[in-house]
């Protein structure tokens, strides 16, 4: 009887052990399969296409052409223009969103009475589709019927309506402003989450030591927010380099090619010029650029950790 119980117990334990060993794999199988289905095959397919001539208007011939797609794309006029545009836009958007996020999070964390109202609406722009955000701004900035022009005009700040989206410089500025509106709130919430983790005693101690608001921000708040600052900068860099939805509705890459970014160029090659080989080769170049940037960021983080 006793021996029997021990045997059953051992069997249960053995079963549990086997289960424990298999469980980790079972628990990740489903997400792994979904992700793998939409990663491995698409990447292989994309890399393959990029080495072939794939023009939809010539559906019968897909000769292997090696690196020709890459060479043609990189040497094209549009690649240089869109690369410069993307670089400018990325720098402006990342700096803009980061500063906006920092300022808003500090204001949200302040004791001002109006801060409560801002706290309620701050996440709204982030919660809506970029397509819709772009559309709202397109209409607000419209050069014939836009409400922004209307308000500036009614206030007497301008004599005639400004062509916000038809002037190359104004179009770039408008794009960055719409992006800050759309992306800034999430950055603000990230910074706010970080601010709330900073113990109050640190501020009190600094105040007793006679630190002014700026010195407290510079020597206490900012260093402690550093990990979040890095998350925000990395995330916003990737978002800015890959910006598409906003351009699709707001400027369509125009006027001329003044807001034509690199992923817009890839879209145009694939869906307008129907040259899949070119478009996909370009997309792979973009992927490599982002990969290099991420590795650089990681390196900065790691070297700072070693110094710190």
């Amino acid at each position, binding site marked *: 009887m006793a021996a029997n119980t021990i045997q059953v117990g051992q069997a249960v334990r053995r079963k549990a052990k086997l289960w424990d060993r298999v469980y980790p794999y079972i628990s990740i199988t489903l997400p792994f399969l979904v992700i793998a289905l939409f990663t491995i095959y698409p990447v292989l397919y994309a890399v393959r296409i990029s080495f072939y001539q794939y023009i939809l208007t010539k559906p019968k011939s897909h000769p292997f052409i090696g690196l020709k797609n890459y060479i043609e794309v990189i040497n094209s006029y549009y690649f240089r223009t869109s690369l410069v545009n993307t670089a400018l836009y990325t720098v402006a958007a990342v700096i803009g969103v980061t500063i906006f996020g920092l300022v808003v999070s500090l204001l949200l964390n302040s004791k001002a009475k109006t801060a409560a*109202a801002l706290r309620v609406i701050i996440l709204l722009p982030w919660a809506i*589709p970029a397509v819709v955000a772009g*559309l709202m701004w397109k*209409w607000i900035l419209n050069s014939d019927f836009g*409400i922004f022009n209307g308000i500036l005009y009614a206030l007497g700040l301008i004599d005639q309506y400004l062509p916000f989206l038809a002037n190359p410089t104004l179009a770039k500025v408008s794009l960055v402003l719409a992006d800050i509106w759309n992306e800034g709130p999430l950055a603000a919430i990230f910074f706010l989450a970080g601010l709330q983790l900073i113990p109050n005693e640190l501020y009190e101690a600094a105040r007793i030591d006679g630190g002014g608001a700026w010195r407290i921000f510079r020597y206490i708040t900012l260093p402690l927010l550093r990990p979040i600052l890095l998350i925000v900068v990395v995330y916003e860099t990737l978002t800015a380099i890959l910006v598409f*939805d906003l351009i699709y509705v707001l400027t369509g890459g125009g006027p001329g090619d003044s807001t034509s970014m690199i*992923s817009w160029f890839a879209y145009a090659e694939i869906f307008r010029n129907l040259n899949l080989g070119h478009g996909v080769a370009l997309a792979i170049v973009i992927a490599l650029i982002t990969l290099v940037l991420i590795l650089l960021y990681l390196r900065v983080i790691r070297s700072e950790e070693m110094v710190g």
Partner: protein
Amino acid sequence: MTPRLKRTLSSLTVNLLIIFLIVYIGGPFVWMALASLQGENELLKRPPSIIPQNPTFDNYNYVFTGKIPTAYEVKGQLRSRISEEARLIAPALRNSFIIALSVMAINLLIGTPAAYTFARLNFKGKKGGYNFILASRLMPAMAIAIPYYVIIQTLKLLDTYLALILVHSALTLPFTIWFLTLYISNIPRDMDDAGLVDGCTPFQALTKIVVPLMAPGLVAAAAFAFMTSYNEFLFARFLTQSIKSQTGPVIIASIAGNPDASYSLISVCITLGLIPPLILAITLRRWLTEGLSASITFR
């Protein structure tokens, strides 16, 4: 300057700055809602009237019942600005909602156990698997758009909910798993260790002990997944073909793509499309901040 004056001045600047931000952030929403209550001819004035002169629900009436607003009959040439497509917005938003809810459920159901495994259990291939999942999001959408189309076509899923549910799940799961893994790593280990010693299986330790402790994280992850799916445009645009599966962003972008589209109808569509995300953003704000705080705790 006396200290008291200085304090009043700085509080004034802070409040003015906040009011400016409230206008910048909230203004576009308010304008869309106000514009949707006006007739087309009022919106085409220079400058347009901010406060509706003759507020009317005719535009909404048209979208839901097809009754053409009287404002259009007044001016004959405005008649052409009515786009039939605007009437598709209600079913499109329903599609968006069903798809986003399914994506959210999938993320929670299969993402949470995976995150627990990555945060707590040891097994061969853990690091490789984790890195693979994170790196999967590096490919720009443009490069994988065509292979996605081929996959969905091969599975005979073009123009179905399931196609977008699958694709959106693949897009959101890496973030959900990463976020929840960080979140669980920040929960003290002793709690579920005690459960494991008492004879719980890892899955029981997760459902009975850890899940109740990670509610803010789960809410944040669920909200992110819902929003990403509800807002996604590029894949939704070319994996759908008819109103059977077209989502809100696809219909709104297509209405706006028509240069003759009516502004009042666009603003109705936008206002309707804004309602679900706005409710979510306002109700979940506190949970989101809490969830983010807990997963990015300084280490």
